[in-house]
Structures are given as C-alpha cells and as structure tokens.
C-alpha cells in the first residue's frame, strides 16, 4: 500500500530508527512500511496517524478512488 510515511518522517527530520522508537517498532519495520512491502496493522496505522496528527487516509492510500473514474 502506498503511503506518505517517508515524506512525513523527512518533514520532522527523523531517521528510521527515531521513528521506530516513537512507534515501538524496528527500523526494518519502518523501512518495510515506507517502501510498501509491509502493510501495518490497524492499531499501528492509528498510532502512526496520531503521531503525525493526520487521518489514516491522508497517510495511507489503498488506491480506491470511490469510483470517481467510472
């Protein structure tokens, strides 16, 4: 799943390890989420959203556009 985690992290000038500390996950987990190789659980997605004070759907994009192109 596409997401803006890398951009949001860069805006705060955090390393992957620093973001990992905030989320209580490893650097590998942050990297896997940023690169779209791993989709976080709902609790972790909420944690990320709260950390950046944004709604989940503004951070994660599941590709669904509500049928606007149909």
């Amino acid at each position: 799943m596409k997401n803006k985690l890398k951009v949001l992290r860069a805006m705060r000038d955090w390393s992957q390890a620093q973001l990992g500390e905030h989320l209580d996950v490893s650097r590998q987990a942050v990297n896997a989420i940023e690169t779209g190789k791993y989709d976080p659980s709902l609790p972790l997605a909420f944690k990320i959203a709260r950390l950046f004070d944004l709604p989940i759907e503004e951070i994660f994009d599941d590709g669904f556009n509500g049928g606007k192109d149909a």
Partner: protein
Amino acid sequence: MTDLTEAKMPKNDEPLTKKERLNRNILIGCALLGGITGGAMAMVVPDLGEQPLLTLSNSEIPASAAIIFAIIWGFFLPVISIFWHRTVDEQEAHAYKEGAYYAFYFYAIAAPVWWILWRGGLVPEPNGIVIYYTTLLICGAVWVKKKYMS
C-alpha cells in the same frame, strides 16, 4: 526513548532501537546456546564413523547427555522462544509467520512423499533429522528475506 534532538545519521550508522537491541541480544544468546550445545554434542559422540555431519548422525550417546540435550531443546528453547516472540514487532512477527507457513507446507508435503516413496522401495529410509533441519532452514530463510530484504 531516543534523544530526538541528536543529529540525523546516515542509515547504516543509525543506532539500534530498544526492540532491535533486545532482539539482537536474544538471537546472540540463542547462537551461543546452539554453539555450546553443538560443541558439547561433538564431545560426547564417541565415533562419527562414516557420517560426515554430526547433527545428522543417529549414533548412540550417553543417557545423561541425552537428558541434558533434551532439556535444552525441550525447556530452554521454548522459554527463549516465548520471550523472543514477546519482543519482536509486528513486521518481524509477520515475517516469521510467513516463514513458518512455507516451512509447514514443506513438511506436510515432503515427509509423506519421502515416506511413501520409501515404502515403494524407490528411495532410502526417511531421515527425520534431515526433514527437521530443512524445515527450519526454509522457515529461517523466508523469515530473514521478509524481515531484512524487503
């Protein structure tokens, strides 16, 4: 908690998070335990004969040594495993479960296929230890790939 005011370092020089440090220490502990166990096993096995791989050997060992090894595998390994599973984050847990998934299917398919071919006189007798190590190898390989190579 990491001091977030410290300078951002290049990726390869980033400090380990608390979870990573604990995880690494547990894995180092497991490796040491495995090394000590393997070394001890090498000392108590009297003669390897023509079997080049000690751990694949079915040769006799003293009962006292067998009890010690059984306690290590049957007690310490589960305790360490429970502790490790409580330590890892969800991405690593997912990677491990995927490894276990592939390993289970290997076991569920390879073991009966080998056994049935042996009964048909087509292959040598099944070796449980070979299947065991191959199962662990598949689980470990998938786990490492999913965790570190994603």
